């Protein structure tokens, strides 16, 4: 798995896109980078719609990102499509309601909304 970082235009929303499988063999390696990933953004969107696997190690990454964003008062949302692997796991651990949205458009609206 890898995270691709992209900042959209001048509105300061940072979109982090996950690809491949996010499991215990890759997610922990990203944890130390979380402060850097979040720093300086107006808002953060984690797009997991391209993942083929997602487990509790991924949940920890999402959790860390959410905490870090909260510390910086940056809005944060996770794109986890309804039938994808990430949505199922986020629902199981009870994070889907507060963080997950169906697609990128909805995520951008949520983090830039009033």
């Amino acid at each position, binding site marked *: 798995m890898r995270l691709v970082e992209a900042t959209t235009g001048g509105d300061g929303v940072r979109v982090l896109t996950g690809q491949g*499988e996010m*499991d*215990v*063999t890759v997610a922990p390696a990203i944890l130390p980078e979380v402060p850097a990933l979040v720093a300086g953004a107006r808002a953060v969107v984690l797009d997991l719609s391209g993942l083929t*696997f997602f*487990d*509790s*190690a991924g*949940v*920890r990454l999402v959790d860390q990102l959410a905490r870090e964003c909260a510390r910086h008062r940056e809005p944060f949302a996770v794109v986890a499509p309804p039938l994808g*692997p990430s949505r*199922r*796991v986020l629902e*199981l*651990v009870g994070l889907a309601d507060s963080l997950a949205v169906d697609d990128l458009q909805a995520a951008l609206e949520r983090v830039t909304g009033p």
Partner: protein
Amino acid sequence: MSSAAGAAAPHQGWADAPCALATLALDGTVLEANATLLEWVGRSRGDVEGRLRLSDLLSVGARIYWETHLSPVLHVDGRVDEVAVDLDGPRGRQPVLLTAVARSSAGVVQVAMTSARERWRYERDLLAARRTAERSAGQVRVLQEATAALSRALGVDGVTRAVLAAAVGSLGAAGAALWLADARGALALRGSSGSPPATDPSTPPAGALLDGAALDGAALLRAGGVLVPLRGQAALQGVLHLAPRDDPASDPPDLEVLTAVGQQTGLALDRAHLYEQSASVARELQHSLLAVSPPEDGRFAVATAYRPGVAMLEVGGDWYDTFWAEDGVLAVVVGDVVGRGLRAASAMGQLRSAVRAVAAPGVGPARLLSRLDRFVEPIEAAGMATVAYAEVDLDTGRVRYACAGHPPPVLVPRCGPPRLLWDGRSVPLGAFGRVHERSEAEVDLSPGDRLLLYTDGLFERRERPLEVGLEVLAHAAAAGRGAPPAEHVAGLTATMLRDERVRDDVCVLLLDWPGPPFSRRLSADLRELSALRHELADWLAAQGADDAARDDLVLAASEATANAAEHGSGGRPEALVRVGAHVEDGVVVLAVHDEGRWRPPVPSVERGRGLGIIRALVGEVSVETGSGTTVVVRRALRGERP
């Protein structure tokens, strides 16, 4: 002889003539009557001559006819010829043919009457004979129609339909109810047609059985209808209760015909019972042979279907069977004995047993068929039987198969196009020529592949070539492969037989080979974790897991393996984690084993989430400690998430 005014004196011949002669005045008064006339009317000459008019000697009807019709005609035309009238005589009416001529010049009317009694009787007899002939012809026609319908009828249901239809058809009843006797002789309502007599369906018509007349077999008129006993050879088979038509113009019920129809129906019911008994013995035989359960084993699943030929009560000689050819090698068979009925069913039973008896370790399909050739030689009904036989090694998936005149098995792979297995073919069993080269062939199953054996009724249709039928079958078999085996077979037979009023029996056997259990070893550095997930997903699909079960189990296995690697390895990257899975009664049992001691999860870290996720995913998790720790999870292959 007295003489009348104006009339010539009659000579002796006139007076004694064998016909009645009279001379009348123009007003009809009898002037002279001869002896024959006086004798016919039973009166004396003195009473008649000069006193009575001719009309006084006629019957009432004839008198009216004379006064209103004959007398005027006589006056106008001068004569009437051969008019049939009745004289009123001492022995009742005397039919005569009357001819009268008016002799206006003489002022008299001369009348001659000849007796018409014989002719009248002849005509009456003629009419009666014609009526009788017509009625007999009608009865014969009705009987023939009813008998023909009854002889065409198959089984008790067929006879019931035929007699109820005849009742409101040729027998002319407004409606009918058929009561049939059960084994103890109690009558039960079997069916009705038209507007049947109003009776309580739970109670036979009164007196139907106890009435003495019913016992001798004659139809009886009863208030509200006609009771027709249906007598078989040995016992009363039932009672037909008819409602006559209200229409006054319709003929009254013909008890003779109804009695005869009742006898025919009784005998038809005798035949139907015998027929059904024989068919039922054959059916029972076949059913008992086909009902034998396949061997119980987690390494394969077998689903079967048997559809008896419709429109025929007789069973055919189709069969399927599964048994152990040797340890770990399953034999699957589908065969077809030529012919129908008890003979075919018993030949099928013998042949089926023979296949089991002949199969033994090391024999193999080709030699098995050769041995069957020798077996069928003395059994005439088993000759030309066709068989598809396959032995499946449940550990490797290798199939050895042979077909004796039988349509090719279909290999339905988990992915990819279906294959007709055309190799390993030879002639039907006991075919002419005696010495047969029996060949066999091999094919390898991959986990999740299915093997379909069937009899020709499944794909053979008169309107299309065999190859086309086989292609349709292979296509239909591939279309249903996502479903569990039993649904696959049910769907396949439903699809293939959708438009078919099946003439022939159909046997179908489907073997599902999920492959060996899942078993992998991983080093604790988890470099192979992703590969494990993909292999497990593939294996689960071969077992017939649906998408949700596959995703849940792969996630659970991944979490459990990550836990085991961290907690069980003691920090040694070379330590091993074992992951195994097998299916028990549609439930996947997944076990992840490590060599360390399981530590209870600490809440608030992802390890806790890991076990929490496993529990949430599969519902049932157990942790066994002994030499190391084993996490066991169970989840159904299909169906709702827990």
